[in-house]
């Protein structure tokens, strides 16, 4: 695959290395001559000096035949614009933008960016998972289907302790996929399975019903 990466900062640099290792044809676009030279000195001619937001630069590096376009500069607005130019001027099938401000995700999707990655959110989720009392954590978002997979902890003071799965009033579109008890092996929940304090529940839901699912399962 031909992949263009905009931004040769730390993220762009390690991304470039990883993608090269996987055997892809990769080109990094970087405005700063010094950064560009460092990359070229180490990895060969895989870095092009230029502004990844300019249609002319993107034409010069053959963006029209790129399979994927990844914008990972530190500025959301630059990532948005370069993805839009790639999409609308050069018809790149898949554009990916890094976000600093997680709130921008909806806007970027609306404006033609295929995938957004919020580094802030990823770090936050990982930290939340490490906090033992946190009732709900994100495990995975499946954008195309509008689904999220979450992890809910049943605490001793949850109202649902002792209730069976069929007694729960789960929001529409939410399903329990797996129950991991504090002791013993994980099992698929049946309608008659009773929830115990300390259970960890893996559930599939939609982004909108997340809050409802949390209170249906962990409500105190």
């Amino acid at each position: 695959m031909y992949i263009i990466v905009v931004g040769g900062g730390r993220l762009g640099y390690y991304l470039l290395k990883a993608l090269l290792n996987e055997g892809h044809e990769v080109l990094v676009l970087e405005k700063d001559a010094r950064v560009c030279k460092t990359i070229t000195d180490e990895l060969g001619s895989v870095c092009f000096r230029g502004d990844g937001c300019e249609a002319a630069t993107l034409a010069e590096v053959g963006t029209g035949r790129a399979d994927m376009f990844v914008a990972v500069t530190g500025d959301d607005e630059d990532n948005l614009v370069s993805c839009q130019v790639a999409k609308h001027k050069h018809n790149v099938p898949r554009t990916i933008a890094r976000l600093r401000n997680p709130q921008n995700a909806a806007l970027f999707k609306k404006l033609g960016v295929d995938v957004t990655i919020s580094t802030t959110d990823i770090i936050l989720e990982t930290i939340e998972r490490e906090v033992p009392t946190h009732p709900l954590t994100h495990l995975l978002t499946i954008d195309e289907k509008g689904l999220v997979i979450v992890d809910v902890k049943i605490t001793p003071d949850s109202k649902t302790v002792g209730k069976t799965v069929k007694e729960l009033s789960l929001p529409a579109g939410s399903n329990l996929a797996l129950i991991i008890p504090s002791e013993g092996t994980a099992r698929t929940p049946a309608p008659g399975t009773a929830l115990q304090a300390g259970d960890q529940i893996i559930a599939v839901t939609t982004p909108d019903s997340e809050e409802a699912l949390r209170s249906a399962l962990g409500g105190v």
Partner: protein
Amino acid sequence: MKILIMGCGRVGARLASLLDEDGHEVTVLDVDTYSFRRLPPSFRGTALFGNGIDEEALKKAGIEDMDIFVALTQGDNRNVMACQIAKHIYNVPRVVCRIYDPLREEMYSALGLETISPTKVFSQLMREKIEEPDNNK
């Protein structure tokens, strides 16, 4: 009319005071409060600290009730992003965007933004100035 101007540079401040003189309700947004020094003492509008590409800041500036949004920061991309937020998220009836880069200006104009490229306008103006016969001689 209620007008929100993002960027209180020379153009932003001047436009704000002109529109204020015309009797419009003007709010100016800038990430540097020092730039508000450019507004004349007679300015009756609102000068607000905030980043126009941040939805919360835009909300605080009252974007939901605005009739017009104008983006006049130094960054083309910042202007483009702010205008798209104003247009697509807050449905501001009229959005005007300054984009220095003529190529980018053409693309966003094709995508439905109302755009002005000072580079294009000013070079055309200069060309006419230079090529016109000198009437003073």
